[in-house]
């Protein structure tokens, strides 16, 4: 247990320290400022920097963690500010009620905006969100009766706590620090929780996330709403700070400023704070150059982006620097995987052995999928009994991976039906199919390369407990399961290393670990042997057999005939989207039709 906690410091046991430590620094800095400067000017700048800090924390969630190109983030800032202004000026509310209402309304408006917008990704999302912020800005300009038009709402008083208020700059500064502390605390908690992990996973590799059972749309919605709350609060404080709100709060300039802060902040709160200070202080010192501000900003942007051919890669490397890379050059001993032999039953993975059922693990009937004029899968039928190990072979273009994609829900068939473990899953989404006990690996490796090895598996493992509140015991159990999965495949020594730094063979093992941690009853392996050397192949054979012995039904696509013929119970041969033959391995290896499918028609006559 202790060992586990050492390598996985993100467990809730440490959530307090993850949150308290930065907060303490912030408090100390703030006290320092109060004590050492009496200059109201500096305190004002510090206040503004903290306001941006609060908003930037939220933006970091959206941009860095979720990877969403939300180019209209400023609109939440503006909405928070205006709601606050209206409540404060027109109704004379006190601070705390205002804060609560701002949070509520910002969240609701974001929810409304997100519903249409989240259908888009990438560049499209960028421009749609730009348009959205622009719409908000136009509304603020034109809805004169409520928003007072381009002039904005002025005369915003300082925060009122149960009748107490003050016009001293220190007063607002202290309140801002207080809110910033709460924001930072919330941010740290979110980021180190399972949600933070899941959002990173979604950003890194959508397909793998889907296969792990994540509902991406829902998660994106949650991130968007949560991050907008940060911006809304920041907008409220800004209203107090500037005593006036105007439509320019929703302009793209604000979003770009926050974006630069977030990017330079390199995904840690201290970096973001420093960036905020720099970007608030700098324009003040360059006051005389104010009209050139955008010009410099533009030059800065173009220059930085073009500096590296990869654009932001040098910052990205810093962002993930805390995850170590595996030293290159693996020696021979690392090649012996700690897997028990086929004879003994291994399992620390608690997969229960299923008795033979009266349904099939996988039952495909008349499955058809067409792409334009090409029939990828043609009236295919296949039954895999529970507990069996089936191999699927066939020449290039036979439709094998298409079949897997259909079975795991990534694409939908034109005709036919699919039953998995007695559920009809023909039209189901990948996350749903994953949750009834289907694990899958991909032909082109889809691991999360900048997450640690343990985190890779933890993403899948966390799924079951997503709906439960932040429960420490549950979290520890989940981490244990993930660790055990790594032990099963023999990768536990590399738990803290980044997934992308593992050599190819180990990455394949990692994928398998990810697929089995949620204790699937059906495991789909897509070319697991690709690129493995003979020693690794031997180990893979034993691993797959071990998995089968634990009671998991395994269906494996492979091109490496030798591999399949040695471990499979039955082999399913596909060609041109159809089933050519289903039989035992030895018979398949010498079947004339199979030889013809692979080597060509004339094989029979010539080879005799």
């Amino acid at each position, binding site marked *: 247990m202790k060992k586990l906690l050492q390598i996985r410091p993100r467990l809730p046991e440490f959530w307090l320290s993850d949150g308290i430590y930065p907060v303490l620094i912030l408090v100390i800095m703030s006290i320092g400022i109060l004590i050492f400067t009496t200059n109201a000017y500096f305190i004002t700048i510090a206040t503004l920097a903290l306001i941006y800090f609060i908003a930037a924390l939220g933006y970091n969630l959206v941009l860095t963690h979720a990877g969403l190109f939300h180019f209209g983030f400023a609109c939440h800032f503006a909405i928070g500010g205006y709601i606050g202004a209206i409540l404060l000026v027109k109704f004379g509310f006190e601070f705390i009620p205002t804060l609560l209402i701002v949070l509520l309304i910002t969240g609701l408006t974001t929810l409304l905006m997100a519903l249409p917008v989240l259908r888009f990704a990438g560049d499209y999302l960028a421009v749609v969100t730009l348009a959205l912020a622009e719409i908000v800005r136009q509304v603020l300009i034109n809805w004169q009766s409520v928003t007072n038009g381009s002039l904005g709402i002025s005369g915003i008083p300082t925060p009122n706590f149960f009748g107490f208020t003050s016009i001293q700059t220190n007063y607002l500064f202290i309140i801002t620090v207080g809110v910033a502390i709460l924001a930072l605390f919330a941010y740290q908690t979110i980021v180190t929780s399972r949600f933070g992990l899941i959002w990173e996973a979604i950003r890194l590799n959508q397909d793998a996330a889907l296969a792990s059972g994540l509902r991406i749309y829902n998660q994106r919605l949650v991130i968007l709403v949560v991050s907008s709350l940060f911006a809304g609060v920041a907008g409220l404080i800004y209203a107090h700070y500037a005593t006036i709100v105007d439509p320019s709060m929703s302009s*793209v300039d604000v979003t770009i400023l926050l974006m630069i802060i977030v990017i330079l902040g390199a995904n840690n709160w201290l970096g973001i704070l420093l960036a905020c200070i720099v970007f608030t202080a700098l324009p003040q010192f360059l006051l005389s150059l104010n009209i050139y501000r955008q010009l410099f900003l533009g030059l800065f942007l*173009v220059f930085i982006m073009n500096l590296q051919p990869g654009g932001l890669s040098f910052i990205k490397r810093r962002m993930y620097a805390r995850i170590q890379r595996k030293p290159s050059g693996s020696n021979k001993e690392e090649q012996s995987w700690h897997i028990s032999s086929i004879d003994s039953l291994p399992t620390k993975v608690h997969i229960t052995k299923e008795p033979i059922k009266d349904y099939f693990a996988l039952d495909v009937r008349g499955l058809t999928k067409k792409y334009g004029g090409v029939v990828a899968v043609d009236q295919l039928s296949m039954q895999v009994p529970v507990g069996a190990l089936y191999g699927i072979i066939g020449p290039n273009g036979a439709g094998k991976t298409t079949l897997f994609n259909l079975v795991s829900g990534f694409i939908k068939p034109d005709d036919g039906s699919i039953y998995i473990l007695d559920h009809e899953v023909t039209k189901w989404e990948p996350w749903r199919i994953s949750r009834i006990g289907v694990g899958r690996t991909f032909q082109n490796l889809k691991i999360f390369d900048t997450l640690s090895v343990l985190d890779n598996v933890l993403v899948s493992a966390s799924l079951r407990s997503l709906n439960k509140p932040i429960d420490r015991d549950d979290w520890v159990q989940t981490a244990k399961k993930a660790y055990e999965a790594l032990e099963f495949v023999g990768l536990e020594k590399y738990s803290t290393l980044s997934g992308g730094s593992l050599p190819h063979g180990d990455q394949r093992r990692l994928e398998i670990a990810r697929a089995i941690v949620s204790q699937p009853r059906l495991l789909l392996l897509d070319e697991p042997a690709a690129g493995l050397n003979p020693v690794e192949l031997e180990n893979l054979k034993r691993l797959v057999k071990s998995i089968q012995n634990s009671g998991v039904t395994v269906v494996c696509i492979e091109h490496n005939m030798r591999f399949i013929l040695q471990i499979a119970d039955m082999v399913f041969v596909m060609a041109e989207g159809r089933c050519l033959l289903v039989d035992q391995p030895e018979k398949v290896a010498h079947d004339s039709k199979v030889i013809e499918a692979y080597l060509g028609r004339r094989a029979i006559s010539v080879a005799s």
Partner: protein
Amino acid sequence: MFWQQLANGIGLGSIYALVAIGFTMVYGILFFINLPHGDVLMVGTYFVLGLIIIGVPFIVSIIIAAIATAILGVVIEITCYRRLRRVRRLAPLLSAIGVSYILSNGLLITAGPRPKSFPQPLSGNITIGNVLIPNVIVLTVVLTAILSIALELFVYRTRLGTAIRAASQDLPTTVLMGINVNLLISLSFAISGVFACIGGTMLAWRYGSVSPSIGFSIMLKAFAACVLGGIGNIRGAIVGGLILGLVEVFAVGYISSALRDIISFAVLVIVLLIRPSGLLGGRTEVAV
């Protein structure tokens, strides 16, 4: 009233169509959203104004400025985007925003923040029935028609144009044909620049003035028009532009002029909801 609005709408729509064509040409080949398009447009328009002020005749000014804008577009592409072509994440978008800032701020500094009046090329109106159509609008529509047909002929009847169409369908295979794809891309940016400059000039005729800070919202409208008609598709841009122009004019006429932009963008969002690939089809990136 209706026919009047219709005529106005077609006038505005032609302008939007021209601007949208420039925008979509770049997207068609590179799948790149050219955020500074509106700012390039404004630079071109100011350039025309500058030339007119120093006494160069109208037509010559436009020609010179169009060529200059084309060159500007190519220069921007080579310096700011070319290295980022393979990088499909935040970097190209940010670089584009940087360019937008440089252009709009540069314009602000050189020309000053206040709008300048822009001379009309023609005065007078023609009357059809009880509809009064300013000659300027007729000129706009005619010019748009000529340019669109010219582009259409180029893209469908010349070998170079065919190469551009090939590049927008399958860029790697186009390279396999032995074609220097960089030249094609630069050509697209050049054409985009020309259309931007002329489109901006026509906008300036219509409203009688230019101002340096509206480039951004013009780009958003161009995007809206392209998406309406199906982005990456020249004919779609024309249709989208016309529709957007008509929608705006009718909105201003029958609802309120204050809500003009809101309605345009709202239409964009609605169309995207119903038909993400636009009215004439095309390619979209849709999230899961």
